Every structure is written in structure tokens, then in C-alpha cells.
């Protein structure tokens, strides 16, 4: 990286089933204003805006970013839209960080959002086409067979998914922004919830949320006087691969393995479980925690579920994952990836409140999307790289 880049401001909206108190422009503006306030800067201090959301078909409005420019103070400024399906919130943050690292801009506002109550994601992800049978039932229908393959491959017992479903919802109780607050959740409640995409039950799947996330990224010379110390970017990378090719590992995609190797290489991470203090990883369905533990090198192949079962990924474990409650507790699709990146930054800035890991110095933010074919990750730290 040519120029150092840091997160100096973060903002998120309340993540809820229906934010019918605001329009989409109002929603993105709410997150952006919070990020500017946290950074201690105004609209005039922003050089460019980078925005992302899930595919336009969700709302049936093409290129919505054009009409959002006024709400984001972007009129007359460079504005850039990013598209990488569910990983888009992460990729959007990375495009913004690249603009700073490349020395093109000093201070960039990056925003991601989804208003699922104004859209129909299930329909948009299940459109019939002549070359495929009309069977796909949303993202859960796509990922459930791969989860079954993971269970077969690893020999993991079936209660592992329920452990993740409970852990992340208990974490969400410590996060006032989180959509799901289920104080009574336990393994039994998850086990008794309705089977949606066998082997995935209702409470092992993410909710459908409205919400937006925003960050102000700055170069070393434009840090200003933010409310909390900067979170420095120590490594960042994106990778993608085709959704379908012969011999593709759909349980542990190569693009994910290569992406994390690149990011950890930049950040000097060789023993992630020891060196990373906290991780925010895109887990929309419970089983993706053990699957990504293996894909990201926190556990050997086939061993991820043992880490989950041991409690290592709980807030009091040695490698806490998704202290915010994660995607399992809030899923404003386009914003979900950025929330992972933002929550990682909050941890190393010491501003995560009740879900703060004391003394967190190095954190991983991760997002994936499409048919597990887009990956975006960064490592942020309290120390200047």
C-alpha cells in the first residue's frame, strides 16, 4: 500500500425488520451523518463517496445510487458504485480504502445499505431461467446443500449449527443496533424452530433487515480529530471465482483461501488464532461459522466445528467471532458486509460498548457473496502499520 489508510469514523442505523420511519435516502443519510460525526468532519471535508448495495433487482430500481447522491452530499463529487452481491459491503469499503491508499483522495465516505422491507430478495434470487429448473428457494436453498456436504465431509454432529445460532443471538443482546434481540434463545428453541431448508432451521438463518452502514476513511495526513483513535488498515484483498466449474470446492472455496492468505500476508499474520484478537465474519447461516473457521485458516480442514463446540468463538473464548451478533442477528444484505468491516474497526478503536473485547488490537473483517464466489476481507489494527 502506497499511503496508509485508517478508519476515522463509523456510523450505522438501527437495524430493524422495517425502518418505515425513513425512506432509502433517509436511511443512508442517517448512517453517513453518524460516521461524519464520529470522525469529527463535515460534508465539505469528504472528497468522494463509494456506495454499495445488493443487486438492483431486489427493489426493481436500476442504479439507485444516482438518486442517492444528494442525500449523501455527493453532488458534484466523484461517486462510485460497487457490485459484488452479498459481499458488496466489504468490497465497497475496500474500493474506498484503495482510493485513499492510492493517494487519489484524502478522505472518502463509504456507505452500504439495504431496505429489505422495500424489496423482495427471495423473489429476486429465485427467478426462473430456461437452463435451470425452477427450484431455487432463495439463498438458504442455495447454501443448505453445501452445508450438508460440509457435515458429511467433516463428520460434524448436527448440534453444532445450533450452538452458533444461540451464541450470535446472545451476543446481539449486547448490541443495541442489532435487529434480533431474543433474550430467551437456547439450543432447544433453535431445535424446535421450523425446518426451512433441511438441514437448516428457521433460527439457524439470518433475518431480513433494513439498515445502512457508513465509514469515513482517511489518509495519514487527514486523520483530523476523531472521537476514537483510528483503526489502521493492515491488509486488504478481494478474490472471486466462477460459481460453477468442474472440481470446484463449494464448501471451502479456493477464492476465500487465497483472499485470506493475501490479507494475512500483508498484515504479518501467520498464526491467526493467536494473533487476531476478534473477528467479524459473514455467517448468514449457522454452519458457515465452522466452514469459514476452516476456510480462513483458524482451524485445520474438518476441525472447525470442534472450535465452535469448544466455545473458542464465544465472547469469552480465545478467538471471539461476531461479538456484534453478526449476520445471523441483522441482515440488511448490502450493508451486512460493511458492518463486519465496521465492527472490526470498532473493536480496535475500543468503541464497541458492551460487546467490546478488552484490549483488542488486531481484528479481521470478512464478507462473502453470490454462490460463495466473491470474497472481501481486511485486517485493521490499533497500531500504525
Amino acid at each position: 500500500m502506497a499511503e496508509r489508510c485508517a478508519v476515522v469514523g463509523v456510523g450505522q442505523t438501527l437495524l430493524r425488520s422495517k425502518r418505515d420511519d425513513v425512506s432509502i435516502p433517509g436511511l443512508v443519510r442517517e448512517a453517513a451523518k453518524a460516521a461524519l460525526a464520529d470522525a469529527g468532519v463535515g460534508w465539505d471535508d469528504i472528497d468522494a463517496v463509494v456506495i454499495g448495495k445488493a443487486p438492483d433487482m431486489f427493489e426493481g430500481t436500476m442504479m439507485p445510487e444516482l438518486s442517492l447522491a444528494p442525500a449523501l452530499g455527493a453532488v458534484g463529487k466523484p461517486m462510485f458504485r460497487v457490485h459484488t452481491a452479498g459481499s458488496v459491503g466489504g468490497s465497497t469499503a475496500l474500493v474506498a480504502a484503495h482510493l485513499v491508499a492510492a493517494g487519489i483522495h484524502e478522505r472518502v465516505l463509504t456507505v452500504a445499505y439495504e431496505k429489505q422491507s422495500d424489496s423482495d430478495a427471495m423473489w429476486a434470487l429465485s427467478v426462473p431461467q430456461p437452463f435451470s429448473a425452477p427450484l431455487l428457494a432463495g439463498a438458504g436453498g442455495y447454501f443448505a446443500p453445501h452445508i450438508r456436504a460440509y457435515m458429511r465431509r467433516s463428520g460434524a454432529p448436527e448440534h453444532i449449527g445450533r450452538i452458533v445460532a444461540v451464541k450470535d443471538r446472545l451476543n446481539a443482546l449486547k448490541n443495541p443496533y442489532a435487529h434480533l434481540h431474543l433474550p430467551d434463545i437456547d439450543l432447544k428453541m433453535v431445535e424446535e424452530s421450523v425446518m426451512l431448508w433441511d438441514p437448516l432451521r428457521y433460527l439457524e438463518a439470518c433475518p431480513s433487515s433494513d439498515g445502512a452502514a457508513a465509514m469515513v476513511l482517511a489518509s495519514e495526513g487527514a486523520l483530523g480529530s476523531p472521537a476514537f483513535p483510528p483503526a489502521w488498515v493492515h491488509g486488504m484483498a478481494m478474490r472471486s471465482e466462477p460459481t460453477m466449474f468442474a472440481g470446484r470446492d463449494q464448501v471451502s472455496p479456493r477464492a476465500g483461501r487465497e483472499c485470506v492468505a493475501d490479507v494475512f500476508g500483508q498484515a504479518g499474520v501467520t498464526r491467526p488464532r493467536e494473533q487476531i484478537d476478534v473477528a467479524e465474519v459473514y455467517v448468514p447461516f449457522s454452519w458457515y461459522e465452522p466452514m469459514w473457521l476452516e476456510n480462513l485458516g483458524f482451524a485445520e480442514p474438518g476441525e472447525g466445528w470442534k472450535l465452535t463446540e469448544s466455545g473458542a468463538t464465544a465472547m469469552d473464548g480465545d478467538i471471539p467471532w461476531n461479538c456484534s451478533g453478526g449476520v445471523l442477528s441483522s441482515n440488511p444484505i448490502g450493508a451486512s458486509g460493511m458492518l463486519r468491516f465496521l465492527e472490526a474497526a470498532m473493536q480496535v478503536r475500543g468503541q464497541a460498548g458492551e460487546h467490546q473485547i478488552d484490549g483488542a488490537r488486531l481484528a479481521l473483517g470478512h464478507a462473502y457473496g453470490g454462490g460463495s464466489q466473491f470474497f472481501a476481507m481486511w485486517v485493521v489494527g490499533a497500531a500504525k502499520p
Partner: protein
Amino acid sequence: MSGAEAGTQPVTVLETPIHLDYVFTPGIAQSIFLRGLARGVFLGQRCPTCGKVYIPSRGSCPVDGVATDEVVELPDTGIVTTYCVVNVPFAGQAVEIPYTCAQVLLDGANISFMGLIQEVPADQVRMGMRVEAVWVPPDELGPSLASVKYFRPTGEPDALYESYEEYL
């Protein structure tokens, strides 16, 4: 309208269903696949470099980046590599829930595609289960996967896990 009127609520959300008609242009490779379906056969294509057989083929091998111009006719039989049982309703759903949605790997193919499994209770579907395609009657065949009604078990012994592990 005043929301305070007895028995009324202010309108906050208006649903406006929309539709879009479009013409699908499949291109050369997918036309071969779709025309095969219209006469009740599975047509894939082989990569000249790695030898893998793709169905449906997009006309090039995603690994080697070369044209897959050798057409290969595949049988109606194959295996279930993995599957899920769909029990969630959504707008425009074409099949009654619950239904078993499987990844079917045809014999001789190197990639699976999604297929409906019927004539067997959902809780008896297995990874590695041998299945065969059931086509619609000849006068209903057309250039789409709707020509395949579903796949059903053949009753043969299951494939060994090791034989299809690389397709998961």
C-alpha cells in the same frame, strides 16, 4: 385522509407489483443444450484441454478458458451429490412444498446441476443415491429444463462417497 378516523390507518406502504417480459438469447452452446432438452436428451460439451464434461455448457471451460466445441450426449442416469428439502414458500414458486432440491451429477458429466427428486419420501433421499430423469410426454417437450419432470431413484446401490467427493 386522517388516520384518526375510526377504523382507519394511515397508508405507509403501497405494494406495486411489476413485471418484465424479456427475450432470452441463449447463444450457441446453450442452444445445443436447450435443443437437446426439446428432444429429450442431455447434451453437454467436453473441454479439449482438461477433458471435463460440462452440462449445461456455457461454451467455454471456466478453468482452461478454451472453447468446448465437442458435443457429448449424456445418459438419463446419475447420482445425487447433495440436496436440501425446501419448506419455505415464496412468490412465483413453481413446485408445491416441501420438495427435495438436489444437485444431480449425470453419469459421464463433471459438474452437477439442480434437479427435483420425486417418487421417494424426502427423508429417504441420500447423498450418493442413484437417480434417473423422468421426462414430460413427447408432445410437451420444449427447449427448457421444464422438459425434465423430475428425477427418481433407480433402486441401484448408492455411489461411494469417495467417487463424488470432488463434486461437492
